[in-house]
């Protein structure tokens, strides 16, 4: 009895010792850069949150494995502080403030998507904490004159112009376009931009339908679009919306010459869920594993990044994952350039950055949004993505439905 008690006591001491010990170790390793990352780890956006987390983790691991970040004559380890905001934007804003004031993070990664990034950036702007948004492409996010917000996705027109050019130049029979957009910041903004790009080319918009977030049945919209007999269907939304739309288009017999969907087909899940129905769907992504850049960042070349990704997660990264890793790599370049972790100096260094990375050329415009990327256009064939633009990384030609 008493022996048991003694052993229990000993275990407790051991645990207490271990905790104390780790605290001492943590105390010694003071030179740490803490980056806050509010993410939707639960709730409807959880899959997107998981992608971002993979990108951040790979960056932190790679940066630490290569000896950390050097600035100010010191070497800093990277630590990412996560916070689950359960896909609820006000929570993300609250989390951002908590990370800045309590966890004392030096820098921040914005939450997922344009809306939440915009909301959270008002907090980091007030505190003057440089914030990098990996998944916010709409120009509206950056239109508030904020100085501390940077985005790694180019404005929406860079994903609408190229595909409008390719389709119109390759097939003169495509004249009538139907657009179906999710009523949400990014999907709606990109659809409106597409409408502009198409009108500029003299195309006719025969339908422009909006669907609410969380819509589970698109048959009414699809039937209306079918009545307008479009040559081209352009649908926007997130991966689950687009899978459903593709299936319902097939069931209801909407068969245009071109189907373009943003931003689902870039994800493996889309090709897996649609199977043969995914064939020939075209899309645009801000990044694709087939691009080739010689980066000066921690990952180096695009090939090296692909290899590192495959070693950790198996397979290829999609644009959202690569953009999250790039957000880290870019932050690191900014810190190294500033040679300081002072938020103001890092902010200025980021703003003046002009450098090639595994992700592409990185240069931010006056609003803080990246302006130097060339988002590739690609098409699904046999469950694989085939890049059809730009010329430098082209893997095949755009094909049309018969």
């Amino acid at each position, binding site marked *: 009895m008493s022996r048991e008690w003694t052993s229990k006591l000993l275990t407790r001491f051991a645990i207490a010792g271990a905790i104390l010990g780790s605290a001492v170790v943590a105390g010694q390793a003071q030179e740490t850069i803490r980056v806050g990352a509010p993410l939707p780890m*639960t709730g409807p956006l959880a899959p997107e949150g998981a992608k971002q987390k993979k990108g951040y983790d790979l960056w932190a691991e790679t940066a630490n494995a290569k000896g950390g970040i050097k600035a100010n004559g010191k070497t800093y380890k990277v630590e990412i502080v996560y916070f689950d905001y359960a896909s609820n*934007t006000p929570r993300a804003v609250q989390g951002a403030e*908590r990370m800045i*004031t309590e966890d004392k993070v030096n820098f921040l990664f914005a939450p997922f998507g344009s809306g939440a990034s915009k909301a959270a950036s008002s907090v980091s702007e007030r505190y003057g904490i440089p914030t990098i948004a990996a998944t916010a492409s709409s120009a509206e996010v950056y239109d508030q004159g904020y100085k501390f917000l940077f985005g790694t996705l180019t404005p929406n027109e860079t994903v609408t112009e190229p595909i409008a050019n390719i389709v119109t130049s390759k097939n003169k029979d495509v004249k009538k376009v139907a657009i179906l957009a*999710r*009523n949400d910041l990014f999907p709606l903004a990109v659809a409106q931009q597409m409408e502009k790009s198409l009108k500029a080319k003299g195309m006719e918009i025969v339908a422009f339908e909006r669907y609410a977030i969380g819509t589970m049945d698109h048959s009414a919209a699809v039937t209306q679009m079918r009545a307008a007999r479009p040559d081209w269907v352009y649908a926007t939304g997130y991966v689950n919306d687009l899978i459903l739309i593709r299936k319902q288009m097939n069931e209801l017999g909407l068969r245009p010459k071109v189907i373009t969907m943003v931003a689902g087909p870039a994800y493996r899940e889309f090709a897996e869920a649609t199977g043969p129905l995914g064939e020939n769907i075209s899309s645009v992504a801000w990044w694709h594993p087939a691009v080739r850049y010689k980066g000066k960042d921690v990952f180096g070349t695009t090939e090296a990044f692909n290899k590192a990704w495959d070693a950790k997660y198996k397979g290829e990264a999609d644009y959202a994952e690569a953009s999250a890793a790039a957000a880290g790599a870019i932050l690191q370049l900014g810190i190294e350039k500033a040679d300081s972790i002072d938020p103001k100096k890092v902010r200025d260094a980021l703003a003046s950055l002009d450098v090639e990375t595994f992700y592409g050329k990185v240069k931010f415009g006056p609003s803080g949004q990246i302006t130097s990327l060339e988002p590739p256009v690609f098409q699904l064939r046999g469950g694989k993505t085939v890049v059809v633009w730009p010329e430098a990384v082209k893997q095949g030609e755009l094909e049309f439905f018969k």
Partner: protein
Amino acid sequence: MKRDWVILVCGAAAIGALGWSGDNYFIRLLTILCMYATLAQSWNFIGGFAGYPSFATAAFFGLGAYTSGVLQNQGLPILMCWGLAGLCAAVFAVLIGGAILHLRGHYFAIATLIIAEMLREIVNTTPNLTGGGMGLNLPILRISVDVQSRVFLLAMLVLAVVTTAAAILLQRSRLGFGLRCIQQNESAASILGVNAYQYKTAAFGMSAVFVGMAGAIYASWVNYIEPPDVFDILIAVKPLVMVLLGGIGTIFGPIIGAMVLLALEELVWRNFLTVHAAALGVIIILLVLFLPNGLFSLLKDLSAKRAKQ
């Protein structure tokens, strides 16, 4: 009644003093507390006193937020926008109340549930005025972070105090008495000469005015609103849980409930990275199961026991 006023003044002073000295995140938590205290107190007018389970809180909140947001973007001064948001929510509540307050029990609950959905769709389909699904920016106040956080705490605190003062006045008034009659037996109350329809409409309007203003202050505070955030069903459910937790139909029950629920939420959120929602759900179920009359009743029981001894 005198004791109620004393508690109110002391409580408000305590929160004000705590906020003045705390850091910005703590101030944010206190601001959220005052906001939810306002919402819970407002729900208590219709749900507690009159016994009509309303889910319209989110609708009034969102309506206030958007009213103030749109008006501020037209260049109106901020305080005027907050006031107009409250007025707009109250008028809306009276109009809609006229249509649905003859429904009772579950029927009333369901009718109020769709009001927020309806408003959300209206906002979504008028992008030129409200920004639609792209959300709405509000002018950012160019004052320092520390001042800003205190200004918004003060605004929410004043609102919570005013709402609670209204509850104290209501409890002793003819209207409050009539509402309690309605809650116990509406038919009997009508026979006794209580104009149930008018009384319920007044309570519904009262439950909207402060919520609309809270929405307006919230919108100015976060600078950017979008329909899924301000018409969130949780904004309707949480005040209800808070009132149940604190003690239904009491003056300080809603505030105690708001404090306890938000403190639990914050604690659970800090300690469970991924299972927080489940953990919080279990705690709420346990509290409601074992304390059906709320925490306030526990305090009362204790003081009653002590009095006996």
